[in-house]
């Protein structure tokens, strides 16, 4: 998939001179950091063989809760308040799946709707304003005027998660649960705990991306992060994760997120109608994954 990404970068550079400018490239990073961070948490859940549909709503809810806290109690209050929302939604998802034995699809579909519903109830459809403008540096700021801060947060999170998954028991147990939940359980892995924690991580990163969006636009809107869950799932899959879990690396979600972002960017630069962009993105997701699986699956 990295090869597909490189190929796309080269092709885009030839097609559009505007694409090549460092400014545009950094802009792609900045724009996609929100999806990218969300995909990190989604990756943890997908590696266990589940999906979390509630991330978009969680991100919006985190923004809605964080905004007044930012406004009235300062940066730390907003940050912790928002992240707590993510952890709580994740905990609820995890408990529904493990204790109440709901399928992950049903459980997270439900919390997705409830989360979005609460956002509408709180905002009554009107954006909540008042995030202090100086916090904008997190959402839009650039280190030394060049490197987007949001992208730096994204990459820092990727590095941390890479090490957590590869070098901790928790990380290896996530893979084991995705490989075979039953076998992992009988080997002494507390599979329910692993599932709950993976959903909480997913909620955490969803909230973090919601907060970054919040600090970028300095307000919380009711329709924020609508259908972002699909982009996050697509990033993981395009990055090469197995939908059944057990296979894939967290770092590859960067590749996935960037491929997704790049497609959109080049379509915009080439002046493709925005009506076409969505359809083309879908076709390219299928194409990219098809090339990958087709080339790796030779028949014996």
């Amino acid at each position, binding site marked *: 998939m990295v090869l597909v990404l490189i190929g796309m970068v080269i092709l885009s550079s030839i097609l559009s001179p505007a694409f090549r400018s460092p400014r545009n490239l950094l802009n792609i990073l900045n724009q996609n950091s929100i999806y990218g961070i969300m995909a990190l948490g989604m990756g943890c859940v997908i590696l266990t063989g589940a999906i979390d549909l509630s991330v978009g709503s969680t991100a919006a809810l985190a923004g809605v809760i964080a905004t007044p806290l930012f406004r009235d109690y300062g940066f730390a209050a907003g940050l912790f308040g928002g992240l707590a929302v993510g952890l709580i939604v994740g905990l609820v998802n995890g408990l529904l799946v493990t204790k109440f034995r709901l399928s992950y699809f049903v459980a997270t579909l439900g919390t997705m709707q409830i989360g979005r519903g609460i956002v509408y109830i709180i905002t009554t459809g009107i954006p909540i304003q008042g995030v202090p403008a100086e916090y904008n540096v997190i959402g839009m700021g650039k280190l030394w005027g060049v490197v987007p801060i949001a992208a730096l947060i994204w990459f820092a999170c990727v590095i941390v998660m890479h*090490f957590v998954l*590869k*070098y*901790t*028991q928790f990380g*290896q*147990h996530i*893979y*084991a649960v*995705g*490989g*075979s939940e*039953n*076998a*992992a*359980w*009988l*080997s*002494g*892995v*507390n599979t329910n705990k692993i599932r709950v924690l993976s959903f909480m991580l997913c909620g955490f990163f969803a909230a973090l991306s919601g907060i970054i969006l919040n600090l970028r636009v300095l307000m919380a809107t009711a329709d924020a992060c609508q259908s972002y869950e699909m982009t996050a799932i697509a990033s993981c899959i395009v990055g090469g994760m*197995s939908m*059944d879990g*057990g*296979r894939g690396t967290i770092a590859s979600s960067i590749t996935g997120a960037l491929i997704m972002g790049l497609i959109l960017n080049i379509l915009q630069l080439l002046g493709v109608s925005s009506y076409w962009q969505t359809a083309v993105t879908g076709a390219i997701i299928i194409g990219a994954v098809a090339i990958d699986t087709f080339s790796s699956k030779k*028949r*014996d």
Partner: protein
Amino acid sequence: MKNTTVLNMDHITKAFHGVKVLENVDFDLRQGEVHALIGANGAGKSTLMKVLNGIYVNYEGSISLNGEKVAFQNPWDAQQKGIAMIHQELDLVMTMDVASNIYLGREVLKKRGVKCLNRKSMQEEAQKLLDRLGFEIQAGTLVGELSPANQQLVLIARSVSTDASVVVMDEPTSSLSHQETMALFSVIRQLKELGKSVIYISHYLDEVFTVSDRITVLRDGRKVITANTADCTTDLLVEWMIGKRAEFDKKRLRSNIDSEIVLEATGLSQKYGIVDDISFQIHRGEVLGVAGVVGSGRTELAKMLFGAEPVKAGQLQLNGKPVNIRRPAQAVAMDMALVPEERKKEGLIAKRSIADNISIIDYKNHTKFGWICYSRAIARVHEMIDYMHVVCRNKDQEITSLSGGNQQKVVMGRCLSVRPKVLILDQPTRGVDVGAKNEIYELIAQLAEDGMSIILISDELEEILNLSDRILVMRRGKIVSRFDNHTDHLDKNKLLTAMVG
């Protein structure tokens, strides 16, 4: 008629990544015969059948069916041309009824009007077929509600209805009871009378003697011999399979067992099941055999001890202290380990490497400040691969690509890597070849000698008799007999009588 060759596989060679797993194998099948295909795990039996079935399309050599050269592109293609496969894992749709499964892919449509399914005719035809074959199965039953033995019969009925000329049975008896096996044999004889040819793959030599006309032995991807069954003996077959005489009936008991009681169960009963009022003790360095037919509650007992099956009543004491184990994780924390019965479903962590599979529990012993120290963990993996004699390319090979025996060694390696005090083995040699079996026996004896307490559950009476110091016999969830293998002069007959008596 009897000597017409139906199928001829000529000089089949198949290699993966340059490694030859089949080399110049010839195999022929006559009409109306049962031809057994035997060999140790990894000898190439399954590969040969996958070549025949069109799962593998790139191979050298040629196949002819009824005198006509064929090259199947996929299993469906093979089925169309008359090859029926009955796998260990039964490929049936559990949520559909028997008739629909028999006619799957060849559904009968209504002649007139809209071409929708003619359920009534399928149902009737299927029932007629089942009755004709003498199977006591209703065509309208959901396949998922049938016993594994009856599910197998459904597959056999399907093969008859597709008019397959060759039926391949890959370890058909692995999940069957003795009675069901006998019933299957009479079905096989019926197939012969219908003029069908059967390729019969099995690890059980006594079955091969009972059912087959000829035997082909494979070893390390080559054909050793094709012989008439009447000319073979167990010793000969084993010699052909492993290339040397195996010590088949060697008793491996310990002379001085510690008096220290490690695990003690009192009045253990299962919450939702048949296991009732089980009491026993196991000493340090002792092998406790648990015998019983399929469904006697032995596997459930193992799982209850391990916290994987809910317990209604009873006490469990570990090293003299009462313990309450409700999850496998707790059992593992108390230095217990379980090698489960269903290797594929419960043992293997699919999609992961050998190294991951071995070290999943052991990681906890190789962490520094919460981070895994891979150099130490991997050193232990190599130790276990050597110790268990796992045959593999390297530690990063995916577990599912290993042969059954090697998969089992990896699962056992996982349990042993943490040096448990109590080891529960549920059918440790199921689907394992003779060579690996002997290694596992040797290992069990050695572990007990080193002071491990081992609970050994097995279908194979020799296994129980040769390895256990004491033996419990279970029937319908209860312990019905207890034997001391050192003093009771047990033999297979006596044990079997206690099991089924």
